[in-house]
C-alpha cells in the first residue's frame, strides 16, 4: 500500500526545469496578482475614459479631494509595507513574538488607512459627491472602493496571520503563509501609489 500523506509539499513539486526555488503557493499568488493587475488596469482605464467629463463637471476632483490628507494615508500604507517586511524578516529569523507584533502593526496601519478612507467618503458625501451624484462620484468611489475592499480583505488576512504567529505557527523553516500575505499586501500598497498618482496628483 502506498504511503498517503496530506497537504502540499515537496513530493508533489518535482519541476525539473527551473522554478524549483518558487514555492507552489507563491507561484499561485503571483498568477493571481497578474490577474489583479488587469482588474485594476481596467478600472483605472475606465476612470481615464471618463476623465475629460470629470474635469468638465462639477465639483472638480481637486476642489473636494483632500490631497494632503490622502498623502498621509498613502504614507501610512507605505509604512505598513515596511512593517510587513520587518514582520517577515523577524519570522525568518525565528523572532516569533516580534514577527507577530509587526504583523499586528501592519494590520493596524491598514485599518487606519481604511478609517481615513471612510472619513474621506463621508466628507465627500457631505459635499454631495456620492455614487449617484454624477460621473466623478461614481468613478472615484468605485475605483477607490474596489481598492479599499482589497485593503479590508488584506487586514483580515493579516489578522489571521497574526493569530497564527501568536500560536507559533511560523518559523524560519515555515514562513511561506506570511510571505504570501505580504506579497498581496505589497501589491495592494503599490496599487494605491498608482491610484494616488494618477487620480490625485495629475492635474
Amino acid at each position, binding site marked *: *500500500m*502506498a*504511503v*498517503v*500523506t*496530506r*497537504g*502540499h*509539499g515537496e*513530493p*508533489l*513539486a*518535482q*519541476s*525539473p*526545469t527551473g*522554478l524549483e526555488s*518558487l514555492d*507552489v503557493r507563491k*507561484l*499561485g499568488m503571483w*498568477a*493571481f496578482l*497578474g*490577474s*489583479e493587475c*488587469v*482588474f485594476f*488596469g*481596467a*478600472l483605472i482605464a*475606465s476612470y481615464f*475614459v*471618463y476623465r475629460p*467629463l470629470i474635469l468638465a*463637471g462639477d465639483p472638480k476632483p481637486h476642489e473636494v479631494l483632500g490631497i494632503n490628507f490622502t498623502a498621509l494615508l498613502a504614507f501610512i500604507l507605505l509604512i505598513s509595507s515596511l512593517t510587513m517586511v520587518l514582520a517577515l524578516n523577524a519570522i525568518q529569523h525565528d523572532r516569533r513574538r516580534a514577527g507577530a507584533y509587526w504583523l499586528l502593526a501592519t494590520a493596524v496601519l491598514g485599518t487606519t488607512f481604511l478609517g481615513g478612507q471612510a472619513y474621506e467618503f463621508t466628507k465627500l458625501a457631505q459635499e454631495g459627491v456620492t*455614487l*449617484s451624484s*454624477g*460621473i466623478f462620484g*461614481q*468613478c472615484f468611489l*468605485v475605483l477607490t472602493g*474596489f481598492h479599499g475592499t482589497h485593503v479590508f480583505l488584506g487586514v483580515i488576512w493579516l489578522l*489571521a496571520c497574526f493569530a*497564527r504567529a501568536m500560536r507559533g*505557527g511560523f518559523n524560519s523553516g515555515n514562513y511561506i*503563509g506570511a510571505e504570501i500575505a505580504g506579497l498581496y499586501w505589497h501589491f495592494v500598497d503599490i496599487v494605491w501609489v498608482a491610484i494616488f498618482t494618477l487620480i490625485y496628483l495629475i492635474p
Partner: protein
Amino acid sequence: MAAQVAVPVPQQEASPLELRREWYGWQWLATVDHKKIGIMYIAASLAFFLIGGFEALLVRTQLISPLNTFLHPDLYNQVFTMHATTMIFLGVMPMSVGVGNYVVPLMIGAADMAYPRLNAFSFWLFFFGGIFLNLSFVMGGAPNTGWFAYAPLTERPFNPGTGPDFWLLGLQLLGIASIAGAVNFIVTILKMRAPGMTFMRLPLFTWVTLITSFLIIFAFPSITIALILLMFDRLAGTSFFLPSGGGDPLLWQHLFWFFGHPEVYIMILPAMGIVSEVLPVFSRKPIFGYSFIAYSSVAIGFLGFTVWAHHMFVTGLGEIANGAFATGSFLIGVPTGVKIFNWIGTLWGGSLRFRTPLLFACGFIANFIIGGISGITLASPPVDFQQTDTYYVVAHIHYVLFGGSIFGLFAGLYYWWPKMFGRFLNEGLGKAHFWLQMVGFNLTFFPMHWLGTEGMPRRIYTYFPNQGFELWNLVATLGSYLLGISILIFVVNAFLSARRPAEVVPDNPWEAATLEWSTTSPPPAHNFDAVPVVYSRYPLWEDRDPEGAHGATAPRTNVDAVSHPADDVAATGEGEQGAHQGGAAHAFHLPNPTIFPVILAFGLVLIAFALLFAPPVLKITFLVSGLVYGVVSVYGWVRQVSD
C-alpha cells in the same frame, strides 16, 4: 447526471484517509481528486450543453418558416441569449476545463492538481453559477440582451426585468471560478511536471491548457470589471454605461471585447490541443512541427489581446484604428493557418486508423478551415460593415465554436473515455454520431453564410416571406434536428457504456505516447505508483520509434522507465506487476476530502441572490446566510490547510 456517468468508476480508492463511505454522494460532494472533479466538470457541462442545445432547437424551430409564432418575441430573446451564454460559459469552456482537469495532471506525471481544494471550489462555483443562471427562466425572466449584452440595452430604464441582473451576477460567479481554475492549471503545469518533462517535451494539450489559463487570468478581469460597473448601474444608480447620465456605452464594448476575443481562443485552443494529441496517435507518427504548434499557440495568445476592436468596426472608431485592428486580425490567420498544415502534415503518410476520435479530429480540421476563412473575411472592415449582425457572423462563430471546439472536444471524449471509465464507447454508435453530426452541422450552418450575405439579420425572431430566406432557414432547421439526434446518440452511447459489464481496458488501448496511458484505466487515486521519469516527447513510444521520438536527449530509451523509474530516482525496485498493485514506498501527498469548497461556493451564490432580490427581508436573509456560509467555510478551509 454526475452520478450516472460516474457509475463506471470502480471503488478502488482504498485511501486510508477516506472520510466516510456510507453515502455514495459524499465521495463526489467532498472529493478533491482531480479525476473525479474532471468527470463532474464533463458531466455537468454535458448537461448544460444539452440545455443549450435544446434552446438552439427552439430558436431554429421558430425560424423554420416566415412569420412563425412558435416563440413569443420576448421569449425568443431570452432563449437565444441563454443559448449563447450556456454554450460558451457552461458548455464549451467547462468541458475543456473538465478534460484538462482529468488529463493534464496525468499527462505531466503528477498525483493531482497543485491546489486540489481550490479545484473543487472552482467546479462547484461553476456548477452553482450555471444553475443560478438557468433559474432565471422561472424567477422573473432570463437574460435577453444577447451574449455580449451591449449597453445601454442592459440598463434598467431599457430593461427593468431581472434578466440582466441574473446575467451579470451569474457571470461574475463563473468568472471567479474560471480565474481560480486557471491559476490552478498554471501552477500545476509549471510546478508539478515529472522529472525530465521539459517544456519542449510537454504534451501539446498541456501546452494549450497552460496558454488558455494565462488567457483566462488576463482576459476575465476585463469583463468582471465591466460587470461590476454594470451592476452598480443597475443596483446602485450609477450611470457608467447610461448616456443620459454621461456614461459611455462604447466603454462596455471595449471592456467586453478585450475579454471577448481572447475568450474565443480560450474555447478553441483546448480543442486544438486535443486534436494535436489525437492525430499522432491515430496516424501512428509524431506530430508534424511540434514546436511550431506550441509557439504559434503562444503567438495566438499574445495577438489575441491586440485585436478586440475588430468586433467594433461599425462603431466608428476611425479608419486608422480599424486598419490597425484589421491588420492584427489578419496576422492571427498566419499561425492559425500553418497549424492546419501541421495537422495535415501529421496525417500525411501516417498509417491511419479511422476510429471515432480521428474522425472527429478530421471533422474539426475540415470545419475549422471554413470557419477560419470566414473569419478572415470578417477581419476586413469593408466586409464586416456589410456582414456585421447578420447570419454570416452566426455561421462563422458556429464553424469555429461548434465545428471547431465541439468537434475537438468530442474527439477528446472518445479518446480519453476508456482511460476515464475503464470501458470504451461503442465504435459503431460513435461513427453514427460523427457522421450525423458532421452532416447535420454543415446543413445547419453552411446555409447561414448565404442568409447572411443576403442580409438576414441575426437575433430577429422572424422574417417575412418572399425575401429569399425561406429555403435556407428550412434547411438549417432540419439540419439542426439532425444535430440534435446525433447528440442523443452520444448520450445513449455514454449510458450504454456505463451499463455494459465491466471490461478490462488495457493501460494503453490506443497505443498512445503520453504518460496518462502508462497507468491503469481508470487510474488509481494517486495516479502513478511511482513518479514517472521522462526522457523524450513520446515516453511510451521510445522503444518503438527512437528516431521519431525526437527531443530525446538522455542516453537511454526504455518504455519501462516511465512506470518504473530508474533506481536513482525512486528507491523502489518494483517488478513489472508490483508497481500497479501498489506497494511502492513513494509518498503521495493527497489532501483529505473536504466539504468546505462546496459550502464556500454555495455561500457565494447566496450572496448573488441577495444582490438580486429587492425586498429587504429577503436581501438581508440571503446576505447574512451567504456570509455565514462563506466565513465558516473559509475558516474551516484555512484550518485544514494549516493543520
